[in-house]
């Protein structure tokens, strides 16, 4: 028997599958994060119950939880959720409906872009909250001015990203399309539009953040309902627990919606041109 073959055989019989990675190894990052958050909440709770800090200023996890439960139980939270929800859905929805088609047109038609770009650039650079007083003069202190602020917050990031997405065409793709005899319309439909999708999606995600800011800030002025109103009024009355409930709801909404868009983005990540290496 050949010595080399002998060794190989022994190796094969002795070969065991690599030890299965433990639950901890597989989820280390998530677990570390969870532990850290739990420890923080525990410390916060202890600090209050041991009298180290005044709950009037800091509130406490248990107090926030019971306040939230109470607000849901007596239904007082729902009018705030509803108003903010309506503002978000209409404002953000309109922003998407306007920015995506307009961005595609501006990205494709150089002259249209040249005409509108000064306005878009100027407004994109302006904090849109600065327009709130103007919106209140034009649209009153009701829902309309809030929706306008949410819309203005979300529309520009989406618009600018869509324009960039349509404009920055990979020269190689143009060459392929032209070589196969593509006309301008076909170049637009088969190259410009699909290749703009990844940037468009990150625009939608950016716009989302701005829309949430818009809700909160707009509701701090001349509002009667909404999460921003809840936060600012409760803050003025030193109802820290309620302030915290409002903040947490807004934060959760942000995490949830951003996460949703991330899932969609990830589906397109594989064909993002720069991810091909």
């Amino acid at each position, binding site marked *: 028997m050949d010595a080399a073959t002998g060794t190989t055989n022994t190796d094969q019989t002795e070969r065991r599958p690599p030890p299965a990675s433990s639950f901890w190894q597989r989820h280390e990052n998530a677990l570390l994060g969870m532990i850290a958050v739990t420890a923080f909440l525990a410390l916060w709770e202890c600090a209050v119950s041991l009298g180290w800090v005044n709950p009037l200023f800091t509130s406490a996890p248990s107090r926030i939880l019971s306040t939230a439960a109470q607000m849901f139980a007596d239904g007082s939270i729902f009018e705030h959720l509803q108003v903010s929800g309506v503002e978000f859905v209409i404002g953000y929805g309109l922003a998407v409906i306007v920015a995506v088609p307009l961005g595609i047109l501006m990205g494709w038609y150089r002259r249209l872009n040249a005409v509108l770009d000064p306005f878009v650039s100027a407004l994109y650079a302006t904090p849109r909250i600065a327009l709130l007083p103007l919106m209140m003069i034009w649209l009153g202190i009701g829902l309309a001015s809030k929706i306008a602020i949410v819309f203005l917050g979300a529309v520009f990031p989406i618009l600018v990203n869509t324009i960039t997405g349509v404009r920055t065409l*990979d020269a*190689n*793709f143009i*060459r*392929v*399309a*032209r*070589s*196969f*005899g*593509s006309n301008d319309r*076909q170049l637009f439909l*088969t*190259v410009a539009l*699909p*290749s703009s*999708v990844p940037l468009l999606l990150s625009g939608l995600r950016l716009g989302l953040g701005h829309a949430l800011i818009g809700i909160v800030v707009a509701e701090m002025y001349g509002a009667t309902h909404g999460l921003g109103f809840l936060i600012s009024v409760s803050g003025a009355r030193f109802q820290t627990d309620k302030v915290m409930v409002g903040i947490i709801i807004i934060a959760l909404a942000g995490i949830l919606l951003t996460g949703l868009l991330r899932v969609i983005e990830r589906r*397109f990540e*594989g*064909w*993002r*041109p720069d*991810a*091909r290496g």
Partner: protein
Amino acid sequence: MKPPRPLKLEARGASLEFYHERTKQYLSVLADIDLQVFEGELVAIVGPSGCGKTTFLNAVDGLATLTGGAILVDGRPVTRPGPDRALVFQNDSLFPWRTVLHNVTYGLELQGKLSMREMNERARGLVDLVGLRGFAEHYPHELSGGMRQRVNIARALAIEPELLLLDEPFAALDAQTREFMQVELLNILARARTTALFITHQINEAIFLADRVVVFSARPARIKDIVEVDLPATRTLDVKHQASFVELERHIWRLIEEEATKTGMMTNA
């Protein structure tokens, strides 16, 4: 002696100049190129880097416009890209948002002559032809470099071109994959029965693949020499070690070396 075959491609005094904005000078890229390619032939073009090989290929495809002379395909002058010619690109340039199958149908979709079913049917045949059976529904990023280049070739073949133009199609591949793809390309072209014009900067690749090797001069590109490759039509990689092959390689290398020295790309110590 090979029997006379119909002329597929003819360049008559093809010249091309660019205006260079910054230096305010005309830059001559192609100078008076006369070339004939016959039906079913595989002709390779080699030349020193930056000599204008790709520009010539672009001109044949119709992506670049000549400033003098003419290029005729089947006797008709080339003015823009057409369905009788298809280009295989240097980097694969596959659309990452399309599956392999739909990358292959791309040219057909633009033409809009076939139904969806017919296009898919033809594309499936080509995916098989280039050896990618079972990968039709994959996306480009799920494929290796060699596989992507196969898709690139299938995409060009899908419009059933009379003349296949290949612009250094294996430049981005590693040396081993490259050798295998050369054999594969010969098989594919034999099966597809297409005339092909091929650009490469690898001399042994040119000799291995081509019936004739055209040597371009340094810029502005002229035809320095056309070398007949007297090797059997069905070639295996072994042929690269034959004395006649090595001799051809040395001969062509000397021609290119002369040109490279002229441009100062190589200095004779």
